[in-house]
């Protein structure tokens, strides 16, 4: 046999794309076959949306005054979309650890496929699910009075940007999953970094009232930047007038964060994947 002379260290970009597509399809089929995955991913943000709107909406609404049609839901919904992207990303960690435990990752690693395909296939499929969940959340929002002052098109653009953010966070969670290795640990470890990002942000309230030491972090961290960009798109000029950044600056800042998170965490996750022993 002369085949030992053939030297193919890895696979090309074309094959990596193809392999990723096949694994996206597999994970997407799981999402369809296990309705609980989409159901619970939707119920949670819907519950948050309704609770926050009806419990805090009254008092926060007073502070907001007549802005945004006097409806807290208009301010809240863009933030809830970002929160949905954050929470859904945890499923990336959980799903990966489930595959590890079942030996599926070993099978994939014994196949002649691109090393990045398993993770990319997972994060992309999770992004698709997040898009579905955000659309459902938007529908519930409309039912309880959200009126998308910026128009439907800009709302949809906001959702797409938010899905990209969820995709970037999925790479963080892929790394978390590969480090902690069990589904239970993935669930708790995944939430940890999300809490400060969620609460020290503009998801629920404008960050003006935060203590000054927290404000610097809060007004520049990705969740606030994304929430404000979504508000700029969805609420339009009335919101932008209150901001120091213009809409295009906000969009660029969002894209910067998305790109930076992917640039740091995707290589780390792939590197960890190559070394992971289940």
């Amino acid at each position, binding site marked *: 046999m002369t085949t*030992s002379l053939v030297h193919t260290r890895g696979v090309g970009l074309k094959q990596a794309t193809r392999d990723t597509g*096949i694994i996206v*399809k597999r994970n997407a089929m*799981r999402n369809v076959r296990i309705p609980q995955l989409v159901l619970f991913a939707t119920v949670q943000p819907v519950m948050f949306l309704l609770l926050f709107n009806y419990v805090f909406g009254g008092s926060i609404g007073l502070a907001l005054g007549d802005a945004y049609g006097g409806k807290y839901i208009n301010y809240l919904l863009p933030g809830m979309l970002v929160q949905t992207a954050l929470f859904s990303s945890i499923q990336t960690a959980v799903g990966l650890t489930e595959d590890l435990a079942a*030996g599926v990752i070993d*099978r994939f*690693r014994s*196949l002649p496929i691109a090393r990045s395909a398993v993770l990319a296939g997972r994060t992309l499929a999770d992004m698709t699910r997040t898009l579905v969940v955000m659309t459902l959340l938007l529908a519930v929002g409309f039912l309880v009075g959200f009126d998308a002052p910026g128009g439907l098109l800009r709302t949809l653009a906001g959702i797409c940007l938010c899905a990209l953010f969820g995709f970037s966070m999925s790479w963080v969670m892929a790394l978390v999953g590969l480090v902690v290795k069990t589904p239970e640990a993935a669930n708790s470890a995944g939430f940890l970094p999300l809490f400060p990002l969620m609460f020290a942000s503009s998801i629920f309230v404008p960050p003006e009232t935060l203590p000054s030491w927290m404000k610097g972090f809060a007004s520049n961290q990705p969740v606030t930047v994304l929430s404000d960009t979504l508000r700029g798109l969805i609420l339009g000029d009335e919101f932008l007038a209150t901001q120091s950044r213009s809409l295009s600056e906000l969009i660029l800042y969002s894209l910067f964060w998305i790109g930076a998170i992917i640039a740091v965490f995707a290589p780390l996750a792939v590197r960890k994947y190559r070394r992971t022993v289940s």
Partner: protein
Amino acid sequence: MSTAAVRAEGVIRHFGDVKALNGVSIEFEPGMIYGLLGPNGAGKTTLIRVLTTLLRPDAGTAHVAGVDVLANPTEARRRLGLAGQSAAVDEFLTGEENLHMIGRLYGLSKRDARKRADEVLERMTLTDAANRQVKTYSGGMRRRLDLAASMVGRPEVLFLDEPTTGIDPGSRIDIWGLMADLVDDGTTILMTTQYLEEADQLADRVGVIDDGILIAEGTADELKDEMGGSIVELSVRDADLENTLGALTSALGAGISFDAGRKLISVPAPNGPLELMAVSRTLDAASLIPTQLEIRKPTLDDVFLKITGNGESASTAAGGES
């Protein structure tokens, strides 16, 4: 000159203080079933993981089908198939979908992947269940599907880690038959097992691994010959035990042992029937009547216990399993 199906030299892999592999060398030709036999924690799975590119060893070299798995893992992956200890198939996909996906990942077109999936399903007698989600499969069916998945890429060397652990005897015999068919078609198989009977039945060569070292190797018959012929086994009533041991020792000399767990006296019988007759004459002369008396060929159990040095306490455990 033929290329060895598997050739590994001086493979070492430690996990912290645990010396999972402590310098294993192994080499065998294509077209056979190689049985890697060892107790839990002996290093069987670690060796499989090194050979299938899942784990880098701390030292040593490994080639599968002539390809260096450390220098050229992607090429090695094209030539090997792996079925690990857990059935690594997707519960929520059908059997056909699972295999189709694997075929696609091997680079087959959609059509070829479907064709290959159907072939392999038929071979594993899963055609009737092809369009059912795997969560409805029995344990034996899952194993067969997992085996099917490892065959999709037409591997030259197939690695099966305890392929029949935890499944019912009927399914075990099915899987044995399928493995024999694969070898007839030119596939080489390296399988690990804790079941000596399985290695005896299936493997053309047997390697015994313990504490991360390959401690014996050969055909099952060669290993058994090392035991030096047959064994006479008998049991007596507890009250007669001491007298029996005394009478046999003075008549036949050393080498007689008693397994307290199984209550069996063993007498080495290098000349077979001669020792059996001597035992019965001795018992008769002492008016002792055995409750059981038989002569048998050594099994791999005997070999295994002798070379792993696990002694009599272990023999009761192994005896209960086979």
